[in-house]
């Protein structure tokens, strides 16, 4: 029977199951709660005296519950119903080091963490409220090892008013819904006719079929689900990471986000990704003793917002600073390592000589002789494929001019960066990452202040190319991929992950094109968003709403305050799945997005994956290969342009 058609006024007694009826968990499998507890105790030094528990808690807890049920039946017969104390009495037998104080501490911890994991289901809440308003006697029946007073605490913590509501716990009563015996007991105890009783629960056997055997009316709660699978990850944080992201696909999680494709994508894919990254980041900031965290425009604006709202418990001084490749490359070149120069003008977008020069702060018209020496006709020439070495040669010829111009710009504006670092010794730059170019030029722009500071960079990922920027004086770390290792993750990111990530983090504050001196100090000059960028930013904004909804969903777990628990790279699995196996919906909403990858070129945007003509798809040749090469999101291109054009991609 559907919940909208139930007339609650026709019953004298209405009973509710608790788990997956009134309450749901923020975890995919109920047993993952034990991994979350293990994750807590392995980071709490007060448990260090018990190494066997640190190493084995989850397995022991599961085994203890199973043993306690066997022992109960052996000792007293009847149903294998136990309480939490019975379970931990068995747990104690695993090691002679375990004392009663520790057992009390573990039980209290399990109850506290259970409170953070649970939330109320909207459907269950609505029915519970209506049941109370109907004037019927409302009771709660749970097949659970927690005693009724703890069950009451859990319901209260989730916002249910259960004062005056009788709670039956199978562990306490020694009778269960699973056997059906508890229904008989309640019928006798409350002296009520079965036809006057409605029971609402999620378990088909215990809540529905067994209640029906006693002629009790039932309502099957189908708004919440969970899995009985087991996780094969080794570490507690990986089990928890997997459990969190998979819980987002459970139907009850949909109550946390708006019905919008971009919002859903933010909630299910980019939310977990950022949880993992920002947890890792918080841990790094703490471990390295960072005093000032600088979040770099524009990709890090959301990272900063989430970090300060949910993670900055240590009150590290943090600031959002405006810079970009276009604004920093002009002032951070204090040396001339030729391998690093190449990074300045690479990319899929072809730029004219004039544009390349402007990125270096130079006017190409003043260097026509050098242009002609390397074989370029004029400053408007756009180098073709195969002419890259000429561009490199040209820039190398002008190293004195480039460095002198850099010095001039640095003298004018570098104080902006110096001020951001203040007097702190340990300063961190935070961004999505990739090659480490901005950190490299940022550190060099600090002039005489540089050597008195330790500059760290913490990034979502750094690629193999970042090795060009690696130096004893320039510490960089990537979460998903560190200097390109592991290689598979770097390759996934390079097959569309970078552009999808930059879309998810896009900010509408305009990219930084330079700086200006004012009475209030040096301020950033920001670009206006182009029309094509406005649509892009609108979609990104919806996706970011989904990310923030995810953090609201997961925020109670963050109160456990062990960042390491949530730093598992397993949280990035939905993101890698998006890159490598996008669904039709995801292709529909994302493939046509445009991206600008080169410094100061927001007006030159290319789509992530384009569609080519049917003829070129049926007979793939040069056009197909060139388009594939040019597309950012490789898998999307292949799916959009496959030969079986009649099938949905």
């Amino acid at each position, binding site marked *: 029977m559907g919940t909208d058609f139930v007339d609650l006024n026709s019953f004298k007694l209405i009973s509710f199951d608790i788990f997956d009826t009134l309450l749901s968990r923020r975890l995919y499998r109920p047993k993952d709660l034990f991994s979350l507890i293990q*994750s807590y105790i*392995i*980071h709490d030094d007060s448990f*260090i005296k018990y190494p066997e528990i640190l*190493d084995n808690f989850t397995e022991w807890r599961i085994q203890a519950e199973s043993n306690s049920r066997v022992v109960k039946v052996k000792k007293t017969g009847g149903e294998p119903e136990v309480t939490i104390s019975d379970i931990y009495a068995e747990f104690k037998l695993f090691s002679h080091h375990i004392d009663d104080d520790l057992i009390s501490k573990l039980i209290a911890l399990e109850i506290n963490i259970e409170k953070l994991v649970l939330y109320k289901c909207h459907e269950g809440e609505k029915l519970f409220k209506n049941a109370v308003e109907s004037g019927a006697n409302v009771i709660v029946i749970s097949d659970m090892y927690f005693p009724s007073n703890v069950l009451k605490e859990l319901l209260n913590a989730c916002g249910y008013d259960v004062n005056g509501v009788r709670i039956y716990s199978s562990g306490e009563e020694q009778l269960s819904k699973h056997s059906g015996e508890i229904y008989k007991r309640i019928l006798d105890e409350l002296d009520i006719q079965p036809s006057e009783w409605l029971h609402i629960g999620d378990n088909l056997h215990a809540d529905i079929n067994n209640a029906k055997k006693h002629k009790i009316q039932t309502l099957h709660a189908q708004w919440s689900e969970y899995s009985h699978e087991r996780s094969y990850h080794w570490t507690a944080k990986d089990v928890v990471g997997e459990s969190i992201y998979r819980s987002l696909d459970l139907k009850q999680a949909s109550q946390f986000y708006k019905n919008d494709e971009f919002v859903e994508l933010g909630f299910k894919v980019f939310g977990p990704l950022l949880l993992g990254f920002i947890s890792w980041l918080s*841990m790094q900031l703490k471990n390295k003793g960072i005093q000032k965290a600088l979040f770099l425009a524009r990709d890090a604006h959301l990272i900063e917002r989430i970090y300060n709202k949910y993670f900055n418990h240590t009150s590290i001084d943090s600031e959002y600073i405006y810079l970009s490749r276009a604004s920093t490359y002009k002032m951070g070149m204090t040396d001339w390592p030729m391998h690093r120069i190449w990074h300045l003008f690479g990319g899929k977008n072809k730029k004219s000589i004039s544009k390349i020069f402007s990125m270096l702060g130079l006017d190409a018209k003043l260097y026509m002789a050098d242009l002609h020496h390397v074989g370029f006709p004029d400053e408007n020439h756009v180098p073709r494929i195969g002419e890259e070495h000429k561009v490199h040669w040209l820039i190398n010829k002008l190293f004195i001019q480039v460095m002198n111009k850099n010095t001039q710009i640095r003298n004018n504006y570098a104080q902006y960066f110096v001020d951001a670092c203040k007097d702190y010794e340990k300063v961190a730059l935070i961004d999505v990452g990739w090659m480490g170019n901005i950190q490299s030029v940022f550190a060099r722009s600090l002039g005489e202040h540089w050597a008195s500071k330790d500059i760290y960079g913490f990034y979502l990922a750094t690629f193999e190319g970042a090795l060009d920027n690696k130096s004893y004086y320039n510490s960089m770390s990537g979460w998903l991929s560190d200097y390109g290792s592991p290689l598979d993750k770097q390759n996934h990111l390079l097959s569309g992950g970078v552009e999808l990530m930059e879309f998810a983090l896009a900010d509408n504050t305009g990219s930084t094109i330079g700086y200006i001196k004012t009475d209030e100090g040096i301020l950033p000059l920001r670009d206006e968003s182009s029309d094509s960028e406005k649509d892009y930013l609108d979609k990104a904004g919806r996706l970011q709403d989904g990310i923030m909804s995810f953090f609201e969903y997961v925020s109670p777990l963050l109160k456990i305050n062990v960042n390491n628990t949530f730093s598992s790279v397993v949280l990035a699995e939905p993101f890698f799945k998006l890159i490598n196996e996008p669904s039709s919906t995801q292709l529909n909403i994302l493939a046509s997005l445009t991206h600008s990858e080169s410094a100061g070129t927001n007006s030159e945007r290319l789509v992530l994956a384009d569609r080519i003509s049917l003829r070129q798809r049926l007979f793939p040749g040069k056009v197909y290969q060139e388009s594939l090469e040019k597309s950012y999101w490789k898998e999307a291109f292949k799916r959009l342009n496959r030969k079986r054009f009649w099938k949905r991609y």
Partner: protein
Amino acid sequence: MKSKVLVIIRHYGNRKRLLLRALQSIENQTYKNHEVYILSMSSSTDDNLKKALLHPDVHTIYSDQHAVFFAEMQSSSADKIAFLDDDDTWAPEFLTRLISVYENRLQCHKTVKAICCHVNKVNEVSEGNRIIINTTSPFNHYLPTGPINFDALYYKNSIPISSIIFSKHEFLVVAKEHDVFDPAFYWVFLIDFISAYDLWLVPESMSYYHFRDANDSYVGNYSILQDANNEFEFTLNLHRLMRRKGNTQLLTMLLNMLVNKTKHHRLTYLENKINGN
């Protein structure tokens, strides 16, 4: 057996669980005539270590107490000294078997003043205070029984510190020229030690060299996390040894090492050129 062994655990910062495992490894030794010191690389104001310690009999010396360390070593009645890094472990028979060989089989070789055994590498994952051991594999089983050749020391960790027992007197004679509190002291110290005395290898893998994930920035292996700093210290310490007068064997060996290193870099450069890198 009459030897008494001073066991020194070198301990770094946050690694309390690892330290407790090392202490347990010592407690499990079948050879009980030993005294345990923790050489803490944190300062004496850090009381975290005291809180973590459940072994009241263990002495602790902090990184700002150099003089105390040498005074205690000198005055101890022990005649042997062994190091165990806080993340490494020993088989329960480690001390018994090595001391037995040292006392009964090596007295005829007067220059042998230290003994070591083969080492197994242990890969493990550390998650907070939890340890998950993954695999073990041979680490230096290519080294044959008998005195260690000088050129075996070309590779820095070919004989990990946790696999050696030294004669205390000779150890202190050489160690006074080195900074025992410097995490990078050991390799250069061993070069210096072997230039003066011999080290004997017993081919039994009773010492276990534990490695965590290379990207574990919290309790990862010190030598990996501090690789760049260690390299600087190694070079500076080697140069210091070379400037010392009187030991021509050592100077020849170090110069050979330097020539080999430069040759290696040149060959790598040429190889890259040929391959077009």
